[in-house]
């Protein structure tokens, strides 16, 4: 038996429509209102939101709880799940819970090391890596078995997401690394910030050669750099983010009070460039603390709103548009 799968993101990807997802960082605090406020800013503009899992190894409300709050607020969630704090037992039980709560998308990743977060003294788990966790999710969903080989009574039906950074060394390995994740079970991938479209396109070329683009939807990560301070942080303190020289020059070349606008303009241009690039299924907006600015960015990039089902607000958001997993698997 399979829980029937709803899902805007799934349908949009199947239909080949350019999708929009966004990051929504759960709050530090038992604060349902914080999730609802951010959700209200994004509602109507995105196909799904990622609820991050203690992002940057900093303690936040659990992704699964924030997913339920986002659902209630009429947004489709993507539940992020890292291997940093969970062994294979906990990963499987959280995935089952996501299935039971009708969370339509899960995204498995290795996660940041505790050293980089607010509890650097914590014990890192990393029982599985991101590839193995993706594999585990796929086995659970498609074969209905736990890692122990035991059957599960009801199979979940979420779409399985993954992440990749096309800009981190060894660059030549990055396409093949995604190929592994796709072989393991990734249906879609969201990338690290794309500031360098040329390098990104080369990576897409590798994916095309590997036959990955037919099997996995590539959603490109984007976000505005809104101050020179943020630029410095991205360049020196966030591992794995590559900001090319011409972007740095552009942001430094405008008066201090115009940096924010220039950053937004750059982001708009990047979205437009990506939209015009074959093989890009959509964009994933990461605008921490600037969620209210996402509609403006999308609008200026020529992407129209009305993406979330209005019927979802207040009701059971996932009761509509049901499709079985079988059909999807053959389509992809």
């Amino acid at each position, binding site marked *: 038996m399979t829980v029937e799968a709803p899902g805007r993101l799934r349908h949009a990807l199947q239909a080949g429509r350019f999708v929009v997802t966004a990051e929504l960082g759960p709050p530090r605090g038992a604060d349902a209102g914080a999730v609802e406020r951010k959700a209200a800013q994004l509602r109507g503009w995105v196909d799904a939101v990622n609820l991050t899992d203690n992002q940057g190894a900093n303690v936040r409300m659990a992704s699964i709880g924030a997913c339920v709050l986002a659902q209630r607020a009429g947004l489709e969630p993507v539940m992020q799940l890292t*291997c*940093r704090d969970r062994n*294979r037992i906990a990963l499987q039980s959280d995935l089952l819970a996501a299935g039971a709560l009708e969370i339509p998308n899960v995204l498995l990743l*290795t*996660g*940041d*090391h505790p*050293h*980089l977060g607010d509890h650097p003294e914590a014990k*890192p788990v*990393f*029982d*599985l*890596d*991101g*590839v*193995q966790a993706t*594999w*585990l999710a*796929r*086995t659970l969903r*498609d*074969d209905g*078995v*736990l*890692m*122990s*080989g035991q059957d599960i009574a009801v199979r979940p039906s979420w779409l399985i997401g993954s*992440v*990749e*950074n096309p800009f*981190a*060394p*060894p660059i*030549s*390995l990055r396409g*093949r*690394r995604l*190929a*592994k994740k796709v*072989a*393991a*079970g990734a249906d879609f991938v969201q990338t*690290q910030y794309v500031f360098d479209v040329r390098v990104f396109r080369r990576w897409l070329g590798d994916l095309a050669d590997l036959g990955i683009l037919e099997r996995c939807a590539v959603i490109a990560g984007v976000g505005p750099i809104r101050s020179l301070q943020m630029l410095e942080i991205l360049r020196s303190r966030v*591992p*794995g983010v*590559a900001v090319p020289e011409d972007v740095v020059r552009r942001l430094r070349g405008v008066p201090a009070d115009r940096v924010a606008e220039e950053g937004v303009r750059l982001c708009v241009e990047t979205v437009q460039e990506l939209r015009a690039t074959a093989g890009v299924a959509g964009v994933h907006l990461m605008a921490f603390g600037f969620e209210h600015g996402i509609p403006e960015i999308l609008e200026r990039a020529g992407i129209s709103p009305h993406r979330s089902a209005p019927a979802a607000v207040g009701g059971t958001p996932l009761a509509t548009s049901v499709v079985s997993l079988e059909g999807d*698997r053959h389509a992809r």
Partner: protein
Amino acid sequence: MARTRFYARLARFVEGRPGLYRWFTTAERMSKESLFGCRMCGQCAMPATGYACPMTCPKQLRNGPCGGVGSDGACEVYPTLRCIWVMADERSTGAGHRRDLDLLQRPVDHREQGRSSWVNYWQGRDEALWTDATTPGPGPLLHRDLGLVPR
């Protein structure tokens, strides 16, 4: 270290004698620790990683580098160290074994921690450690292979 019937018998012999097994495991630990920084996970992946030990990665990734590798190849967790997967890529490419990094590595069995990977290898127990990701067989991809108990 080739797997032959001779080594399989040797491994069985060693495993059957606790004192000898301890001595043998210590010898393995000492040589591999100093050469590769081995952590004695008991399921050696190094033949497929250009002899860069994935268990020395702070996240113990067995399937390739995380997304945080610095532009100079530094580890995101300990920036004074090189990412072991950058080393694995260089070494396996240099040795003409680039495709080895495409293998899907199965999760580690933590019960083997501290035990001899040589004894395990010689007895053929490592055969299921990895599988080929690039040539999926018939049926829905490779996900069937994850379950430790075959169906």
